[in-house]
């Protein structure tokens, strides 16, 4: 697997990948597509960065909200097809 994460910065004398790297590669991280070493670097960053943790959580909430809000329209009985539409469909056989 090719390395995706490059940019690092020093924080309290230690080297960490940057917020930009974390947010850019969030989808790769969540889909478990990072190499193990990259995943570890990703998690090291999250341990010291509440802002990125906040971003990650709200990103996941966004995905869930999008799904629920759109699929909501499907909850309850599905809409009925108008009789004319059913007729048109059946006569197109």
């Amino acid at each position, binding site marked *: 697997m090719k390395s995706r994460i490059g940019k690092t910065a020093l924080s309290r004398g230690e080297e960490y990948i940057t917020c930009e790297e974390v947010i850019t590669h969030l989808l790769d991280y969540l889909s478990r597509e990072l190499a193990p070493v990259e995943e570890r670097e990703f998690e090291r960053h999250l341990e010291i960065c509440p802002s990125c943790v906040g971003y990650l959580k709200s*990103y996941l909430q966004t995905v869930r909200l999008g799904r629920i809000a759109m699929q909501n329209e499907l909850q309850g009985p599905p809409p009925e*097809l108008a009789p004319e539409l059913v007729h048109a469909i059946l006569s197109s056989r």
Partner: protein
Amino acid sequence: MRIEEAEFDEQELLAKLRAGDDRAYERLVAEHGGRMLAVARRMLRNEEEARDAVQEAFLLAFRGLARFEGQSRLGTWLHRIVVNAALMKMRHRRSRPEESIEPLLPTFHADGHSTIEFGQWQELPDERLLRGELAELVRSSIDRLPESHRTVLLLRDVEELDTAEAAELLGVSANAVKIRLHRARQALRTMLDPALKRGRA
């Protein structure tokens, strides 16, 4: 759903459809049509186009019955067909120049630090509350996404297609789907942030 409907065997329905049984065709439309209309509506946001997409989807399905191999459920197969019919309608719309999604994406300083501090969001309300104001905000925000990004978000996060399926239907690479999905989610997150961040007055 009545018991006899629940017990109706899909293989039996399929055999009757292939034999040209009128009642079987009526049953297929009655059982799946409503759900297909809901999918077409949420993708197209236009009642007339949604109805046309459902009609076209059934036409394609009727023609394709002989090739349906029964490896997926009929409902799953019909879902893919109506998604594709809706996508074709979207392609034929007069295309407006797309607004850039960039202003809705996070920005960074030269050292890689985010230009703003991301806070926590409020705990999500009970799913029932989503029928109200917040659900409408989410839907209208999704509508505001540039079309190429909105489409990917709908296919992946709402219709729950995988990356490869979405890429195939859209005729783009898997990587393009991933990039657009990530940007679409980020942009939607930015739009929802003012309403959901903690400590909001």
